[in-house]
């Protein structure tokens, strides 16, 4: 939050008759003279003048001049769009193949297939993103608008977002395959669903929170103007939640890659269900023991992750900046070369103009949804009665489901085994704890160092982001070779495997936190002669603490998820198994043992939720209270 600069001029200084009057109209492109130009920290002057150039372009009126003729860049973009449509149609058409259980679609490890497989995987990712956005819009809005819905939806999503995605994979695969018995479409759906679950909870919760914390005066303005529900959603709700939507989507995409590559090759009930994709390519190459091809696939994967970032998430985050509500400029504005290119094109303008009449018609048609939140008076007695009825029904439903699940599990799993499983979960928890401790010791100092050196930071940050969104389960099986050679048990080795993916969250959050330490504080510390350990203890560590907690929380979530893949690894004919709940779930999945799979998933979820509540959230609250800058 920043305050508006107030001119300290005493009232008496104003000429009594009239203050300077008349329309205040500075020359085009010039700032009003009384408004201090706020320099954005960390941006060289060249870029500042660049932004004022873009503003200049908006005078006199946006598209009027540009609309006149096509530009070379338009041709370029047009070709890109056509190529994209062609690719989607080509790749998408092959998703519906005949499929007989027992004869899964073959995955060839011919490197020539890699681009096609990568395209299939990317398509699945975006196919998962679309329903995730829709779900977010529907349930986020519903929870924010209905008091009672919020009581169910918000806690449910909150728990679901800390449940490891992979735990329920086999259950969903079985369900979807049953839905499309003679086509690979069922497997495709299961895979897309895995992506969906990796993305949706974060996004939905973020959207709900942005609705709940909407600026009060904007809400009042919208109500007083009498915006229809449809108008309010598109003019206020979606824009005000846009930034958190985009960022959460981008961050969750890393977890989604992980879920995707796992879901492409899941084996349920001793049947391998391989879908053509980059994840299954790697799995096949590993089965065949073809190390070079695995390496090639890893390179292709990195290229894919980087290009999705470059062509999709970067432009989107840069574009979303226009939806920032507070007046302050953030330290480093996300920029995207690709977005600049799109902005130079006249095509988006043409498209917008062409669609405007349709938008108008839709706006009219949607008036049937009515105007929300107008009613002021509620019948208190009726409201309370409805509340009670709702609570009773809800509690009964939850109790029935819990009892049903409980008795189902008890019928299939002997009681002592449940106790044993709880021990398994405890062991895995120990691994997660070790991993977080290890990441802390290693990455906090390095991250802080990187964050405080802008030069290093500029190079390191994109690299770390790629590392964090790279599905490391690709390389797990290679551990078999290493562990086999070194003689280390997987019980310890899998900690390293889990860390491969999870540790980066600690690193990049600490980098961000250290980068945000105000220059004033650093200068003050230097001025006081703080050096060495004292400087770390009194300045750096407290300053990065809140972002460290966020990173460590995310890292431990990622580690739980990874444990399912990391505690059982196989390469060629060798399979290693560790003692832990992850291996237990994996085994149950392979056996098609629904009850054990479910039990394992529930146990893991309970651990995660309880630890989050008891430990991480408290630590986070403390961090925000004591160390937030």
């Amino acid at each position, binding site marked *: 939050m920043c305050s508006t600069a107030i001119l300290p001029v005493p009232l008496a200084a*104003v000429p009594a008759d*009239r203050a300077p009057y008349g329309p205040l109209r500075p020359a*085009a492109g010039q700032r009003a003279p009384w408004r201090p130009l706020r320099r954005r920290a960390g941006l060289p002057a060249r870029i500042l003048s660049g932004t004022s150039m873009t503003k200049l372009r908006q005078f006199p009126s946006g598209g009027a001049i540009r609309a006149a003729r096509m530009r070379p860049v338009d041709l370029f973009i047009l070709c890109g769009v056509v190529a994209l449509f062609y690719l989607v149609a080509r790749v998408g058409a092959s998703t519906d193949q005949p499929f007989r259980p027992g004869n899964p679609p073959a995955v060839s490890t011919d490197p020539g297939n890699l681009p096609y497989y990568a395209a299939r995987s990317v398509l699945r990712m975006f196919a998962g993103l679309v329903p995730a956005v829709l779900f977010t819009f529907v349930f986020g809005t519903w929870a924010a608008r209905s008091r009672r819905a919020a009581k169910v939806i918000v806690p449910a999503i909150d728990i679901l977002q800390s449940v490891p995605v992979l735990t329920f994979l086999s259950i969903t695969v079985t369900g979807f395959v049953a839905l499309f018995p003679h086509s690979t479409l069922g497997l495709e759906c299961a895979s897309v669903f895995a992506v969906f679950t990796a993305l949706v909870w974060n996004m939905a919760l973020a959207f709900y929170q942005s609705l709940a914390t909407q600026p009060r005066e904007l809400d009042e303005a919208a109500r007083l103007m*009498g*915006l229809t529900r449809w108008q309010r959603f598109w003019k206020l709700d979606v824009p005000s939640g846009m930034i958190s939507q985009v960022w959460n989507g981008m961050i969750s995409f890393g977890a989604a890659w992980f879920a995707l590559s796992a879901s492409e090759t899941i084996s349920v009930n001793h049947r391998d269900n391989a879908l053509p994709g980059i994840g299954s390519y790697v799995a096949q190459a590993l089965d065949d023991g073809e190390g070079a091809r695995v390496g090639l696939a890893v390179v292709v994967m990195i290229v894919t992750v980087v290009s999705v970032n470059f062509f999709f998430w970067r432009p989107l985050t840069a574009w979303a900046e226009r939806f920032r509500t507070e007046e302050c400029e953030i330290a480093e504005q996300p920029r995207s070369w690709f977005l600049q290119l799109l902005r130079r094109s006249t095509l988006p303008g043409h498209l917008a103009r062409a669609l405007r009449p349709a938008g108008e018609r839709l706006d009219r048609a949607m008036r049937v949804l009515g105007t929300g939140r107008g009613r002021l*008076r509620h019948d208190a007695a009726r409201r309370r009665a409805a509340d009670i009825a709702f609570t009773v029904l809800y509690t009964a439903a939850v109790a029935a489901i819990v009892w049903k699940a409980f008795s189902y599990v008890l019928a299939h799993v002997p009681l002592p085994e449940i106790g044993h499983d709880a021990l398994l979960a405890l062991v895995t928890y120990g691994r997660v704890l070790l991993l977080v401790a290890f990441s802390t010791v290693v990455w906090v100092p390095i991250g802080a160092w990187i964050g405080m050196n802008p030069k290093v930071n500029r190079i390191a940050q994109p690299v770390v982001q790629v590392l964090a969104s790279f599905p490391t389960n690709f390389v797990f099986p290679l551990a078999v070779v290493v562990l086999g050679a070194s003689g280390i048990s997987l019980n310890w080795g899998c900690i390293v495997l889990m860390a491969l993916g999870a540790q980066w969250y600690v690193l990049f959050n600490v980098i961000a936190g250290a980068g945000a330490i105000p220059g004033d504080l650093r200068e003050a510390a230097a001025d006081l002669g703080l050096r060495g350990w004292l400087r770390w203890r009194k300045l750096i560590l407290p300053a990065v603490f809140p972002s460290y907690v966020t990173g460590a929380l995310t890292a431990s979530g990622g580690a739980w998820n990874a444990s399912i893949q990391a505690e059982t690894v196989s390469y060629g004919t060798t399979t290693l198994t560790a003692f832990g709940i992850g291996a237990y779930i994996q085994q149950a999945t392979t056996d098609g043992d629904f009850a054990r799979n479910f039990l394992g998933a529930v146990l893991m979820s309970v651990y995660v939720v309880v630890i989050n509540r008891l430990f991480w959230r408290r630590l986070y609250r403390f961090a925000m209270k004591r160390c937030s800058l």
Partner: protein
Amino acid sequence: MNTSVISVRTLRKTFPAPSGGVLPVLDDVTFDLYEGEVIALLGKSGSGKSTLLRHVAGLLAPSGGTVHYRGTPVTGPNPGTAMLFQSFALMPWLTVQQNVELGLQARGVHAVERRGRALRAIDMVGLDGFENAYPKELSGGMRQRVGFARALVVEPDVLLMDEPFSALDVLTAQTLRNELLDLLAHPDSPTRTALLVTHSIEEAVQLADRILVLDTGPGRVKAELRVALPRPRDRRDPGFEALVEDAYEALTGRRTMAAPDDAVAQDPLRVAGPLPDVSVEALTGLLEFLDTRGGSLDLAALGDALSYELDDLMPLVEAAQLLGYAKVTASRLHLTTTGRGFARADILPRKHLFAAAALANVPLIATIRTLLLASAGGRLREPYLVGRLCGHVPEHAARRQLATAVTWGRYAELYEYDADDRVLLLPAEHRPANAA
């Protein structure tokens, strides 16, 4: 002229307090807003003036009483009104034109007509050429002009204004006030009636035909001032100055104190009057300033000289009175002898003087000190004190008062505070030897 556009009858509003029970904000407010009239609701912060405005807008449901718009009870967003907000409340992702068109779009006005009306409104407020600018690119004053255009484009019957100029610097605010008057007085203007919430007395006198002065906690109309000065109004005009002084008097005078009943009188914590939320530095600054001006100054002149609005000035004046450092007689602030001594003292003696004044005049601080001296380890838990204060005032007010008492007491070195454990402590040298 005599048609009542908005009529408010015995309006009452309570909010649920966090500790249970209710917190009264408005109590028994009755007034009429007549056609072509501008009313200013004037009050200190916490007088519920913005809450009152939101009832007229139909954004809040009254706990009792009614609001009527031209004879129809208001049960939802009031269709005859449009509002100007303190923070402008423009959608940052829409251009100026899109912002102005939004209200028309909500009413289902067709695109072509909408565009024409919006452009005329933008032209009218002098923002021609900025149609495609985003609010971020505009200065505060220009943003509020967009606010004008957005409110006036729907041709509301009544214009509601919630401190529309308080986020602007002094010169810009003055310009916009004059322009607002011109817009409302324009012969073609369909909007001639307005309700303004402000904490600036001068703004009220300059803009309004009538000023309703609201009392604090719970808000009720405690005075009504008629402004019969011709426009444009000159702030150096004797009539103008007299009205400003009347308003100050209405705001400061006649503090209505409920007689404490027996149960309350027995608890020394509860008889403590409300503590103004003021920093010691600001108070010191005020007293020093007063001393340099000969120890006596009109409140209006003081507000002018410091460029302070009511919300900034009144708590300071109350604190100075409470501590016995100053007196108010007929809207003039006088420094007392102790006040002068305090203003002229050095840093450390000043602390001792402040300690003495606080112990003598602020029952809450004196009681905390007594309780601390009487307690075994020289410690008191903060929640305990909040709990005892809560019986008398709502919880958030209790917390705020205690926070002020803690700050004052810490400054005076009467006690210390440990934020981690939320305990108050005697200073180490006064603590009993056996305490850790």
